[in-house]
């Protein structure tokens, strides 16, 4: 195994050397960094040319200059990396160090959300193959595949930001829209549950009515001006989550798991007011982390309390329920800072921004308002990225699950009398995750280079913006910095995908 990894890394280094050499020379011969200065009639232009030539060693021909750059890079072995200077004289490492977390924040949030939704939709789509829902999802996936992200981004800016902000200044949901949203919700839920015509219509009516009542209540109470969930709604949602998670995780017939999950949901109500006090007085990431740890501890104790045997699945159910309930309380707290955030001078009642990653004018020490600002800036670009990558996840999941469901061991599992839940979650789901796990790595790497356009449209100062700036100003060192990072990511991503696959699947052995 170690020798395999070592060999792979060795080959990768040779490949990286070759590709960076190629990109360096292509980029160097593609444009002259001094062009605009040469054409300039400014008196200082000549001095600038001399200064730039000295700083960037432009008098050295590119193939040789590449090795000077490489020498700086090889400093990594003595702990002194030097990727050169940008045209403005800043160090490339500093620029990259600033840009990487920005891009990662965007890509990670988008990938994880897209993965969760894509998995859920893909699985249901495969379980209901050739149903209305399946056809709907297939069409949705193809449509999302065909959308240019920059086009979607402009639409999102217009309808999710500008129009929504306008709507907030005079909040009133017209009856027509309530009706349309409700019909949409009804169709979605009824095709999700499937079944014969009678069931279709009963689910449709139920979902339609529920949707309509919720929208009406939101409109009547002006909920969107001062949102929040409140202890009663949180408890109800937590109980619903407990039932749903238990039925997926262990089955509702497992009494200890059911009681443990319901206890965790009940604790959400008990903890609601103490949690408010803690959040208001000690709002920080450490507090949130400690509270999650507390939830996990409570869940383990709960599992131990309710059963003496087979505690694993019970603990799992209790932990997931507890974390979901805790998240509900956290979401409620974040929502509560909405009004305060909207009222700040920097926001001025237009809470959904179309541009940038932070509001620089926002001066506040409040942990929650700061986070609200982060979240609001994340919403549009993340949504755009999710739309783009969701299609892939739906299709992959559907295909992988259908393939697994055709295997003999699924037939065996059914034949020996296991219930459908066990067959799907234990036999099919786990095997389906094998190919998807290696895809996940590749998807993150792909999205990082794909985020170039998203960053550009939404004005985020990440890697993509840096790369575009480098190309436009013929800033070779900066370009090579971005290029190096992206290609290293691809190489590492491929290696990691293979390793993950072989670690999870005992049938695959890496030998070459």
């Amino acid at each position, binding site marked *: 195994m170690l020798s395999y990894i070592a060999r792979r890394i060795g080959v*990768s280094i040779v490949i990286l050397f070759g590709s960076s050499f190629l990109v360096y020379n*292509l980029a160097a011969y*593609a444009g002259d960094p001094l062009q605009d200065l040469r054409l300039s009639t400014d008196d200082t232009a000549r001095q600038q040319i001399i200064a730039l030539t000295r700083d960037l060693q432009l008098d050295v021909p590119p193939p040789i200059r590449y090795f000077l750059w490489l020498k700086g890079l090889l400093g990594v072995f003595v702990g002194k990396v030097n990727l050169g200077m940008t045209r403005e004289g800043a160090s490339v490492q500093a620029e990259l160090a600033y840009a990487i977390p920005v891009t990662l924040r965007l890509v990670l949030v988008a990938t994880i959300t897209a993965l969760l939704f894509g998995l859920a939709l893909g699985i249901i789509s495969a379980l209901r193959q050739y149903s209305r829902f399946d056809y709907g999802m297939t069409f949705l996936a193809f449509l999302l595949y065909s959308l240019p992200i920059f086009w979607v981004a402009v639409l999102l800016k217009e309808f999710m930001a500008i129009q929504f902000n306008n709507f907030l200044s005079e909040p009133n949901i017209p009856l027509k829209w309530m009706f349309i949203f409700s019909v949409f919700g009804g169709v979605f839920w009824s095709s999700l549950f499937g079944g014969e015509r009678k069931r279709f219509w009963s689910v449709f009516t139920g979902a339609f009515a529920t949707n309509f009542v919720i929208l009406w209540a939101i409109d009547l109470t002006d909920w969107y001006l001062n949102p929040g969930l409140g202890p009663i709604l949180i408890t109800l949602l937590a109980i619903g989550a407990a039932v749903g998670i238990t039925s997926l995780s262990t089955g509702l017939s497992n009494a200890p798991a059911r009681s443990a999950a319901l206890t965790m949901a009940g604790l959400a109500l008990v903890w609601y007011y103490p949690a408010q006090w803690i959040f208001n007085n000690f709002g920080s990431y450490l507090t949130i982390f400690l509270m999650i740890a507390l939830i996990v501890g409570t869940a383990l104790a709960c599992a131990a309390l309710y059963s003496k045997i087979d505690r694993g699945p019970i603990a799992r159910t209790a932990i997931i329920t507890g974390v979901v309930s805790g998240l509900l309380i956290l979401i409620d707290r974040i929502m509560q800072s909405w009004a305060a955030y909207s009222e700040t001078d920097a926001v001025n009642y237009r809470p959904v921004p179309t541009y940038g990653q932070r509001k620089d004018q926002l001066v506040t020490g409040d942990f929650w308002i700061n986070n609200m600002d982060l979240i609001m800036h994340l919403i549009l670009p993340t949504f755009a990225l999710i739309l783009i990558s969701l299609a892939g996840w739906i299709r992959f999941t559907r295909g992988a699950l259908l393939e697994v469901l055709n295997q003999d061991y699924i037939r065996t599992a059914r034949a020996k009398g296991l219930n459908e839940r066990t067959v799907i979650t234990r036999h099919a789901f786990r095997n389906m995750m094998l190919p998807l796990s290696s895809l996940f790595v590749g998807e993150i790497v792909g999205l990082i280079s794909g985020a170039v356009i998203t960053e550009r449209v939404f004005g985020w100062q990440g890697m993509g913006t840096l790369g575009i700036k480098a190309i436009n100003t013929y800033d070779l060192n900066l370009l090579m910095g971005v290029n190096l990072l992206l290609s290293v990511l691809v190489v590492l991503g491929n290696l990691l995908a293979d390793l993950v696959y072989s670690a999870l699947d005992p049938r695959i052995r890496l030998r070459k």
Partner: protein
Amino acid sequence: MNLFGHREKSTGEILAGGESAIANKEVEGLSQGQIVRHRFFRHRAAVIALVVLSSIILFVMTVLDTKIGPLRIPGWWKWTTEDIPALRYKDCPGGTTGCPTLSLKLGSSFGLGTHPFGQDDIGRDYFALVMNGARRSLMIMFVIGSVAGSIGVAVGSIAGFYGKKVDAVLMRLVDFIQTVPVIIIAAVIGKAAGRVGPLFLALFLGILVWTGLARLVRAQFLSLREMEFVDAARVAGASNMRITFKHILPNAIGQIIVAVTLIMAGAILLETALSYLGFGVVAPDVSLGLLISEYQSSFTTRPWLFWWPGFFIISIALCVNFIGDGLRDAFDPHQRRRITKKDRLKAKLLIKAGD
């Protein structure tokens, strides 16, 4: 509520014997090509996509003048992208200028009108601009598809057929190309090549995007060359060329075609994205991505400048994707026909008649 699908026995499952009988009857006495064709034409969405895409291509190709060398085939549209007619401001909403005249309302105004998609800032006919852009994008899509397709198939089949050292070297080449970030290198070249023109850009992009296809073809060859029919052909004295083209490639062609359609659908998005960033097709040439990038700020006042190019990008990419899906189903030997309600009814009647 049954969350995991219905396991009530359906008529189709009870009549499993009848099902395979239907499937067998369906392919009786047909050649491979005929089976694939029949299956493809049964995929309704793919057929619709094929019709729509062919009409778009026909429409876009005939609408403007076509220049092939000294030859000039006139198009049927009255404006070209160079004409600058006067800006129309009559009956435009909210004091805007150059609004579209396309009207689908029955009545006297029905039809294309003078400027169906409106006019841009200086009065150029937007219909002509969009058509020109769509033509560029289609051309680039097909060039990328054929370049990437031929390189991918060639590299993949050589690597898979010869194996060993040839395979190792070629696969390292694939790794090499994959480590070069397409968007960065394409942008570098695009910036330099803006003056050279879209054809060069398309050729270059084709050289970058064949890696996935090569891996796929290689995997197919690796498994197919171990098959008995290849041994039989070799024993019969067939040359490597003949084995490759007559025995192995026809068996892999389904997957190859599907992969190429996926590359083409990706290509049109890549080209428009590059043009949007300013590194692809540059003015005075027209491309759909370029049009969107130019007029995205006028979305609130003159939305038609934004909707139409996007509409064409999405329609073309969507059609290509659906055709690929139909081909995948058609070429898949494991794919069985879906049992419809009509089939079940027929089978039931047959059984009753037999009793």
